[in-house]
């Protein structure tokens, strides 16, 4: 019999149903949790933001094979851009009045602005940085990230008016990031990464990771794809930053230190560089765990760093390696295994019947 293959349109339907199911489960969970609901909601929102951060970094780390250390800088740029925009809109009043639906267009514009601004920075930084490799790329992106932070902290004195409010913090940002907002944007970001990678463009990026010289020799425009992956990653980080601003309500440059970039890197590395599922699991576990184990949070960074070192020593490919999850593929495999088992059973029964016959005669 022919192999059981799920056709692509069906796969899309399966995935959409699963996503809708997940949303239903989460929403019911929150509303059913009573007083603790608010607390869980906060954790879920943070998880969503971290998922976007980790999977976007994974695009350059896992899929392109580079090690940029300035991801927090793009998050910062997106955060401030989105925040400054939202503060200039009537969103705050609308939210206070309970008119959530009217805020949606503003949110969409804010996210787009954040993505574009972060993307521009990604382009400006990527063009020079991507000429370098390995350690040098790591250090130069670290440098850019730090410069962004210092500029955000000090730019008001240069401009002569209050723009980012520097170290004293940008406050009273409308808190537009609800669970629904985060769920939608997380799903959209994951979808965008997925469809990008499952295309000729994604193949090109992976080929550059595996062997840049060979990629050039088959005509892949490596400069274009490296820059594209980098800018794409930066844009998504900007989106995460914008949603972060809308959740916390105030921004401080110290949030976006080098340390933040490392936290995101840890998620990607532990989950498996090159596996979106790995980054997602990692983000969920590493965000939820410190909350679940309150006393753990003191030791959080120590355990992180230890985990990082141990993972590199014993399982450098991370938890999931380069495994990319597909519901459709998993179902196909399960069906194939069931059929194989059935076939083996039938074959065994046939053999036994034959034996019994021979014994009889």
């Amino acid at each position, binding site marked *: 019999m022919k192999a059981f293959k799920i056709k692509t349109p069906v796969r899309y339907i399966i995935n959409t149903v699963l996503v809708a199911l997940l949303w239903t489960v989460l929403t019911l969970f929150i509303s059913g949790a009573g007083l603790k609901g608010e607390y869980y909601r906060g954790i879920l929102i943070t998880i969503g933001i971290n998922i976007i951060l980790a999977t976007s970094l994974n695009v350059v780390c896992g899929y392109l*094979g580079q090690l940029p250390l300035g991801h927090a800088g793009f998050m910062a740029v997106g955060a401030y851009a989105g925040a400054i925009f939202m503060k200039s809109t009537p969103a705050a009043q609308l939210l206070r009045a309970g008119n959530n639906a009217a805020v949606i267009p503003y949110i969409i514009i804010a996210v787009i602005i954040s993505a574009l601004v972060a993307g521009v920075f990604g382009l400006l930084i990527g063009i020079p940085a991507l000429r370098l490799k390995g350690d040098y790329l790591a250090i130069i992106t670290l440098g850019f990230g730090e410069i962004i932070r*210092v500029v955000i902290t000090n730019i008001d004195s240069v401009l002569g008016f209050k723009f980012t409010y520097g170290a004293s913090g940008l406050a009273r940002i409308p808190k537009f990031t609800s669970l629904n907002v985060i769920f939608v944007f997380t799903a959209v970001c994951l979808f965008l990464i997925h469809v990008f990678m499952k295309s000729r463009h994604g193949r090109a990026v992976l080929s550059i990771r595996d062997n840049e010289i060979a990629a050039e020799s088959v005509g892949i425009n490596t400069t274009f794809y490296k820059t594209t992956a980098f800018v794409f990653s930066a844009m998504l980080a900007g989106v995460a930053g914008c949603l972060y601003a809308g959740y916390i309500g105030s921004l401080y440059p110290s949030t976006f230190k080098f340390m933040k970039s490392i936290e995101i890197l840890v998620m990607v590395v532990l989950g498996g560089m090159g596996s979106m599922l790995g980054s997602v699991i990692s983000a969920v576990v590493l965000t939820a765990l410190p909350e679940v184990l309150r006393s753990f949070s003191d030791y959080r*960074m120590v355990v992180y760093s230890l985990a990082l070192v141990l993972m590199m020593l014993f399982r450098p490919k991370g938890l999931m390696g380069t495994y990319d999850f597909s519901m459709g593929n998993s179902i196909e495999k399960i069906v194939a295994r069931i059929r194989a088992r059935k076939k083996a059973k039938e074959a065994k029964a046939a053999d036994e019947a034959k034996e019994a016959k021979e014994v009889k005669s």
Partner: protein
Amino acid sequence: MTFSLLIAQLINGLQTGSVYALVALGYSMVYGIIKLLNFAHGDIIMVGAYMVYYAIASFALPPIVAIVMAVAVSTLLGVFVEKVAYTPLRSAPRLSLLITAIGVSFLLENGAQLVFGADQKSMDPLITGSVMLGSVNVSYVALVTIAVSVVIMILLTLMVNKTKAGKAMRAVSEDMGAAQLMGISLNRTISMTFAIGSALAGIGSVLYLCAYTQASPTMGSMLGIKAFVAAVLGGIGSIPGAMIGGFTIGVLEALVAAAGFSMWKDAAVFLVLIIVLLFKPTGFLGRKIQEKV
């Protein structure tokens, strides 16, 4: 700005620069030999500084003992980290090694925060007093720091060029495989490189403490990064380069601060790094490496 003020700032810069140079030397040597950016290097300074602090403040040991302890602990820590975290990954992809180094660095910083507390520890300055050079008031600390760094650089250059051990180090950094075939013990040479680099970091930590009299868990990270910029500026893998780079960065920071932009100090250093990496990645004195196709 008056001339004497400028000189004072320059001396300031040379002083910080000397510490950067000592740390940069360690970075440069390690990178030259195993092509690893040892992120944890800066944090070794932090540990050394805490050793000095506790030796003097808690155990009231004489300064000279404290200094020896600091250098010894730094050296041992450096070699320990190398043996435990880096040696097993010698044939692993560079990315893994880099991530491990980052992990070790964070482990040291956060571990120190747990053990020593996140606050800054102050202590009395080890060397006090100053001397008048012309119209400028130069502290003894500054003179000692600069002098020690220069002497060490000279000794190190002599060691690398004239001794058998130094030759081994140069051989391993050129071609690991060939060096092994020549009978050079890879492990011993690499460990020695780490030992020397970490010892220098230990000395650097003492000098740093003399100047700033404060220790905190994160003091090593920014210092380390800037020292790395210095190493790149001077040409990674080059000893005189690390010196030149260190002094340049130190003076640059001093001048930026003197010009009234001290909040932009860090950004200025990173800007220099970016410019160097883009236009002359081999730095002042470094060599270019070609990839074989």
